[in-house]
């Protein structure tokens, strides 16, 4: 029987605290469903399931801290289990619903009316095919939504009617409104319901009475401290173990910026590309071409990665960083890459990252261009063997064919692990990045 285990949500994570189960024993689950919330030292992460099946037993209770790899739940695998369960009491179309249900997207832009209607019908807005510009779900899209599935984790936060005070108290106490349940006939969660839940008393609704109150999420101040400690430990290990070497190269972005300008005229405002997307794309392609820098240092040797999993450093507004990962970057278009990077940054800052966002990266990029720096000489994120940095795109005097011109220029830097590669390999990566940026249309 497969087990659902405490995932590693970063190389610096050794253990995690289970904050909340989003499924019950006996619920059907699908690959990609968010089934639990886990607190690392850095953030509360929504953890996805990698199996199709039925939750057999929940082995760890909320509040328990367990090491990475420890079994959290056992899952009865197989389509059979799912089908048997779903063709039972559930209507037929629910069984026909795609098993690869789209994971809830990032922040959804919808009107209050649409949110209310969706909540009333138990629909997951993330699963509604949107026809509006920029992925906005309109009222007319709702009939196209897949019917709600039992056990499926929908956007529960949207569906709770609660007073402003109740919301404030629940947020302060780290309670999920959906689990509190309304105590009154009006179907609204009031402050008294939250207070009852906070006091550990069962709420008035009997079916909710058994729901355990969740352990509070780590308070922001404590989170800041823990994150500082986690970053510190990892960076200390990096500088202690990894013999870094550094290379920088100035790259003329005239062609890239011209292409970007042209391309953006064809794109809707919400999909406009930033120079960062081109830099990420070029880095990914270059890393695929110079595999000696794309992978991990393990047990005294280098293990190349078959795909480019690009970690992107996101600095949080309250301080600290998270490094969510763009999956299989080399095979994505610049537009897709832009959308993925934007979504990741937004969710990282909103504290809504999922476990799949924190899978191990094979190479990390730090772009401090917005901060106005000339170049970034990074600290490698172990067990990776390289980090690429970008400074600000600046207009600089630039000699071309014996003439002096003004060009947009960026300094690309590389910090690499001398155990895994030498300077010539690093230089090749920077050179490839430069060459790719001269032909942006091929990215």
């Amino acid at each position, binding site marked *: 029987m497969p087990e659902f285990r405490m995932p590693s949500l970063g190389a610096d994570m050794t253990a995690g605290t289970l904050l909340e189960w989003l499924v019950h024993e006996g619920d059907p689950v699908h690959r990609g469903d968010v089934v639990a919330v886990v607190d690392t030292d850095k953030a509360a992460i929504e953890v996805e399931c990698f199996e199709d099946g039925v939750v057999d037993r929940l082995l760890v209770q909320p509040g328990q801290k367990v090491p990475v790899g420890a079994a959290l739940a056992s899952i009865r695998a197989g389509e059979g289990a799912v089908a048997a369960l779903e063709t039972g009491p559930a209507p037929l179309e629910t069984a026909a619903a795609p098993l690869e249900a789209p994971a809830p997207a990032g922040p959804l832009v919808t009107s209050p009316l649409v949110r209310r209607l969706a909540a009333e019908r138990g629909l997951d807005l993330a699963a509604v095919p949107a026809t509006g510009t920029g992925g906005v779900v309109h009222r007319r899209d709702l009939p196209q939504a897949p019917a709600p599935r039992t056990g499926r984790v929908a956007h529960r936060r949207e569906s709770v009617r609660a007073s*402003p*005070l109740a919301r*404030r108290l629940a947020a302060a106490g780290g309670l999920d409104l959906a689990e509190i349940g309304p105590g009154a006939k009006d179907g609204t969660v009031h402050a008294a*319901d939250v207070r009852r839940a906070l006091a550990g008393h069962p709420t008035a609704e009997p079916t909710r009475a058994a729901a355990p109150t969740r352990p509070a999420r780590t308070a922001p101040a404590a989170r800041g401290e823990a994150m500082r400690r986690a970053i510190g430990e990892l960076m200390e290990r990096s500088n202690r173990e990894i013999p870094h070497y550094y290379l920088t190269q100035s790259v003329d972005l005239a062609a890239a910026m011209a292409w970007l300008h042209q391309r953006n005229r064809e794109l809707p405002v919400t999909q406009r590309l930033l120079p960062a997307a081109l830099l990420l794309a070029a880095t990914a392609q270059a890393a695929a071409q110079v595999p000696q820098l794309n992978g991990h240092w393990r047990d005294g040797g280098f293990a190349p990665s078959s795909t480019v999993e690009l970690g992107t450093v996101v600095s949080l507004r309250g301080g600290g960083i998270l490094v969510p990962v763009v999956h299989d970057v080399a095979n994505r278009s610049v537009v897709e890459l832009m959308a993925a990077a934007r979504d990741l940054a937004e969710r990282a800052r909103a504290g809504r990252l999922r476990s799949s966002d924190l899978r191990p990266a094979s190479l990390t990029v730090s772009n401090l261009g917005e901060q106005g720096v000339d170049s970034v000489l990074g600290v490698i994120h172990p067990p990776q063997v390289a980090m690429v940095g970008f400074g600000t795109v600046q207009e600089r005097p630039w000699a071309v064919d014996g003439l002096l011109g003004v060009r947009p220029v960026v300094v690309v830097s590389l910090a690499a692990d001398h155990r895994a590669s030498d300077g010539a390999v690093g230089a090749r990566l920077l050179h490839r990045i430069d060459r790719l940026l001269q032909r942006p249309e091929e990215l």
Partner: protein
Amino acid sequence: MTAAPAVAELTYREAVRAALRDALSQDDRVFLMGEDVGRYGGCFAVSMGLLEEFGPERIRDTPLSESGFVGAGIGAALAGMRPIVEIMTVNFSLLALDQILNNAATLLHMSGGQLNVPLVIRMTTGAGRQLAAQHSHSLEGWYAHIPGLRVLAPATIADARGMLAPALDDPDPVLIFEHGSLYNVSDSIPDGTEAVDIASAAVRRPGTDVSIITYGGTLRTVLRAADELERQHVSAEVIDLRVLRPLDDATLVDSVTRTHRAVIVDEGWRSGSLSAEITARLVEQAFYELDAPIERVCAAEVPMPYARHLEQAALPRADSVVAAALRAVGGHA
């Protein structure tokens, strides 16, 4: 050392009259004018006996011309007097609205601060006495809309007795609304001029479950409702606005921050009313304290009926206030 102040039983009418008599006695610049304030003794008998006491120079009967005599009051105020102008009811004050809004409320601004208008205008307001649709409306909320005015609504005998003096001391125009149903109400208050402020709302009855906000003629209705709520184990806090402009937001927000629920009782019509303004301010300033939608109990949006049962049905009643408070409290008292 000091003896407890003597306590006198006064009607609202006698309290206003005593305040007028004090003002006339203490300051030669003060005079009273309006329709029938002299020989007839006032339409509501408020100024009965003052003509005999202070003479026709200071208790002046005017023609039936609201715009004319309010304008004269503004002129007298500009010339250094401290006029008290009585308008029979707020319904007729609309004839003087141009003087009140375009002159009294505006001259300080238009003159760059050189000309202030220390004028007090008293008028009755409100329904409940079968005076029909031209004598019964509560339009004080309209005046509370106007920058440059201070708008008072004494709801208690003590405020009726005490608000006139600070109103006369105010360098700018002050409107005092006396609810017509209050003149015969009596209460025991300390004998003498108790200083009252004309800036703050008052908590008339402390409570913990719901804030009921009202003013003027409906205060007694609300206090009766609070008694009934207490029998139903709901503790209502009753707030008397006292001052309709500028509103004392701090007292309202403080109360709702403690009770988390609000009911606003306003004898004015609901649309575009003072109750709407208070609702908006509570949402702006205390949104995250609210545990239930704000409830409003207002007059029905009709011209006030003459027939007694219809008039009563159109007005905020204690039972409708109780019902609104129970809705706000829900099962969560």
